[in-house]
């Protein structure tokens, strides 16, 4: 006997993604899903973005609480001194990694609420993990949540998290030929950040070729060329992001 099923295998994930979305809508919080290869500069990019856009609760900086568990929010405390950016957006970060809490510690040390998800070998974040993280966080007044996905150009593109914005980073050293090798990621992302542009003179990276390929695959993509090392291009990005966080939400 033939039974019609017509059920997507990712449907279960998408139901939870919608729950996340509802939870964020209720609080008017904007969520950005950041995806890239390992080593493309995701964590540095988040830190630079926060420096340009976030408000830092005084006192800023400081150390991590001893004995904190991986699923608890980490928050920098003691010693202050950091300057709140002019944009003053209250932000928090969800860090996804296979193992370790190096990244969330770096964010928490800035005075920003950070929560670490360890996927234990899994190559991407799923909506359920983000749901758990959101429930563990103090979301009071939070306007922007940045989710750092697991370093991978393949799988994270398949799993919706309930985000408003999918942002991907391609770093110059990875080469300008990546879009056609990872078509789903490049065609799904709303924003493409080309990072480490200070390296261009030392490589054969062809920005014109990259742009041409990406615009065909994803005509509406927003493209920002930055260097987290020199700071070039970051103002344009944070100004654009501020506009999105304050004025617009889209799926």
């Amino acid at each position, binding site marked *: 006997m033939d*039974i019609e099923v*017509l059920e997507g*295998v990712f449907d279960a994930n998408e139901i939870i993604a919608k729950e996340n979305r509802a939870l964020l809508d209720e609080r008017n919080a904007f969520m950005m899903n950041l995806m890239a290869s390992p080593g493309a500069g995701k964590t540095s990019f988040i830190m630079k973005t926060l420096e340009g856009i976030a408000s830092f609760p005084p006192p800023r900086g400081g150390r991590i609480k001893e004995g904190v568990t991986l699923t608890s929010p980490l928050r920098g405390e003691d010693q202050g001194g950091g300057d709140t950016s002019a944009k003053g957006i209250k932000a928090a970060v969800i860090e996804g990694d296979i193992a370790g809490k190096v990244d969330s510690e770096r964010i928490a040390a800035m005075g920003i609420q950070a929560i670490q998800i360890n996927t234990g070998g*899994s190559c991407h974040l799923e909506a359920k993990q983000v749901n758990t993280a959101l429930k563990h966080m103090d979301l009071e007044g939070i306007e922007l949540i940045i989710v750092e996905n697991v370093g991978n150009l393949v799988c994270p593109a398949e799993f919706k998290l309930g985000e408003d914005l999918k942002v991907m980073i391609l770093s110059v050293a990875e080469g300008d030929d990546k879009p056609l090798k990872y078509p789903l990621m490049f065609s799904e992302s709303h924003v493409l950040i080309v990072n480490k542009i200070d390296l261009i003179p030392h490589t054969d990276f062809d920005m014109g070729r990259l742009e041409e390929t990406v615009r*065909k695959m994803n005509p509406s993509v927003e493209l920002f060329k930055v260097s987290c090392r020199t700071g070039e291009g970051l103002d344009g990005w944070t100004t654009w992001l501020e506009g999105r966080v304050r004025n617009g939400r889209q799926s």
Partner: protein
Amino acid sequence: MHEMSVTESMIEVVLRHAEKNHATKVTRINIVLGELSTVVPESVQFYFDIIGKDTIAEGAELNFRRTKLIAKCNGCGEEFEVVEYDFTCPACSGTKTEIISGREFQVESIEIA
């Protein structure tokens, strides 16, 4: 790369529908896989042989049907096959297009006994 967890999800979908229809055995699973999907059929088969063991779906034949990448132009309404990931509308050169098919990983139907 995530085929183990997606195969688990797929089996969950299959078993749920099989049980609902009082099946004693699932003999065939018809799967639709879009051109853009990153899921690899050979890996799904590999994990299915392991995870499907001792379920009523054990030994079922997996049949994959690939769907082409089809987009629709929001400007002129043209539906077109996307070739080499070029999403520009061939009719009006519009760049506001959306994917209609080619992303799916769907259990289309199952054959049960």
